[in-house]
């Protein structure tokens, strides 16, 4: 069976005053039905630009190359999102791919009742639905996202809801038309931890119940560990490491992944190691490995050319010349 989403060599180019940059550079990834891929990276890594490309929402003037096959139903043929025209996107957005963003307040219409907004999302894909039918499906969508007292909430405006409830409303809208793939871009970053925990539990439950494939974008490795089956780590537009989440987080192979893990604060006291230096500008990337200037294991060949993604094993790969060599020894020496 083909994957729900199969991205092959996707590249996005954007014009800037200092020439063209590639915020997404030769990215390949797959998501199966019911599977969650965590996409991790810091600002400028290209993770959000990748999600925009997959929703046909790239900024004006952007160029896109490669393929992104969406296989949303067993009966219909796969479609290449890269080749879709604007008219075709309307059925895909919401209908086949749902989206949830970081800040629900900026994505919801502040002067429209919540229920009406959910109804609109349903009607966009079913224009002939009757009012009674819309009403029924709206409440069902809100209930599915565990919005308490959906009849009451549907009559309220977004500002009357808490941040967590707003995000639940966003999720119910995103799933209202029954998409098979959900793209969630930092969906819990603006929420308090206790609320984040509830929203993550909700997403996990929906994913099981609806066999949803999910692209979960976040900067938080702890969140990734909780929600994802597999993880792709991005740095300056490229995937630098890719594999099963537990394996990548416990046996990271790329120095950037190791650095991010060591820099992430945990509840353990005083145990964090910053990554020195800063992320290079996309207009000013080195010819070789983009992480080399910050890398404690840098070698001469790192600066010569961008390393290929090398297989660590069948499911796990990393874009580093040290893969397959005595990385461990070097790692110990550095501690």
């Amino acid at each position, binding site marked *: 069976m083909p994957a729900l989403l199969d991205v092959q060599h996707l590249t996005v180019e954007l014009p800037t005053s200092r020439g063209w940059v590639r915020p997404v550079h030769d990215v390949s990834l797959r998501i199966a039905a019911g599977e969650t891929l965590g996409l991790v990276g*810091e*600002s400028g890594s290209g993770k959000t630009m990748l999600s925009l490309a997959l929703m046909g929402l790239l900024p004006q003037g952007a160029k896109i190359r490669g393929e992104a096959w969406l296989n949303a139903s067993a009966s219909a043929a796969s479609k290449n999102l890269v080749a879709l025209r604007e008219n075709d996107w309307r059925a895909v957005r919401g209908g086949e791919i749902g989206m949830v963003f970081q800040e629900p307040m900026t994505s919801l219409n502040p002067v429209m009742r919540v229920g009406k907004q959910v109804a609109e999302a349903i009607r966009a894909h079913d224009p002939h639905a009757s009012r009674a039918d819309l009403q029924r499906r709206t409440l069902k969508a809100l209930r599915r996202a565990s919005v308490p007292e959906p009849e009451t909430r549907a009559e309220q405006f977004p500002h009357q809801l808490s*941040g967590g409830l707003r995000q639940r409303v966003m999720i119910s809208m995103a799933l209202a038309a029954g998409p098979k793939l959900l793209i969630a871009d930092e969906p819990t970053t603006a929420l*308090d*931890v*206790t609320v*984040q*925990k509830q929203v*993550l539990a909700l997403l996990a439950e929906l994913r099981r119940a609806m066999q949803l494939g999910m692209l979960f974008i976040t*900067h*938080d*490795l*702890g*969140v990734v*560990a*909780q929600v994802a089956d597999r993880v792709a780590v991005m740095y300056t537009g490229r995937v630098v490491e890719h594999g099963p989440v*537990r394996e990548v*987080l*416990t*046996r*990271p192979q790329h120095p950037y992944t*190791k*650095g*991010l*893990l*060591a*820099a*992430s*604060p*945990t*509840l*353990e*006291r*005083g*145990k*964090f*190691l*910053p*990554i*020195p230096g*800063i*992320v290079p500008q996309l207009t000013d990337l080195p010819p070789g490995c983009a992480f080399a200037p910050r890398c404690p294991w840098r070698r001469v060949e790192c600066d010569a050319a961008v390393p290929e993604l090398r297989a660590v094993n069948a499911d796990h790969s990393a874009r580093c010349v040290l893969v397959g060599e005595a990385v*461990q020894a070097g*790692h110990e020496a550095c501690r």
Partner: protein
Amino acid sequence: MTDQEALLQATELCKRYQRGGGAFAARGARNTFAAVDRVSLRIAAGETFAIVGESGCGKTTLARMLLRLIEPDSGKIIFAGRELTALSSAELRRARRHLQMVFQDPYASLNPRMRVSQIVAEPLEIHEPALSRAERQERALAMLRRVGLNDEFATRYPHEFSGGQRQRIGIARALILRPRLVVADEPVSALDVSVGAQMLALLRELQQEFGLTYLLISHSLPVVAQVATRIAVMRAGAFVEVGDAEQVLRQPQHAYTKELLAAVPELPQVTA
């Protein structure tokens, strides 16, 4: 802890705000809520006292009251033996050099029309008017170097910097007067993980070097766990638990502290 050791001491601080409704809402105590409700605390010299809590718990209101950037409705604040709450505004201005603040959003807290060296030197103009322009400039450059920004950055404007670099500028500006207490309100929450870790490490170094006392405000227990010596957990305007950081993290007593700890997504241990 005896009174001599406390650098900052607050007793029964209260702040009430009007509850919603705008200008035409009914006035009076019944329509107000306590943003900060009888909070008392003591911060010893040299420690990092962290206040952790979720949005709306009152932690930022409390921090601003401790600097008298917001006037408390009632309660007393004593800083280095002087009652801040009793100072005139001129006396308060003079006292402020010892109490500085680092803000969450380095984008919003720097004047976009000033060069970085001017931004950092500006507090000296106010508090040390006897210094010559060249002396001020030299002190600003030295402080910028100390936070990791060399001289080539000094003539640039804030928009030319990344978030982490801007936070370094904010730290340099806060430290130029050699304050005794630095209040850091969510200093890393707007930054990327790797940059946030650099900032925590820098704050820790500067504390050693300049003998600083920190009041850290954060929503993140993992961030607090890295640097705090004592932790106060705040909810609905009040502290629900205060204690030694180790104790609060390992043997939390209050149900809410336990709930916050349990909600932190955990990372598996790196084995190789």
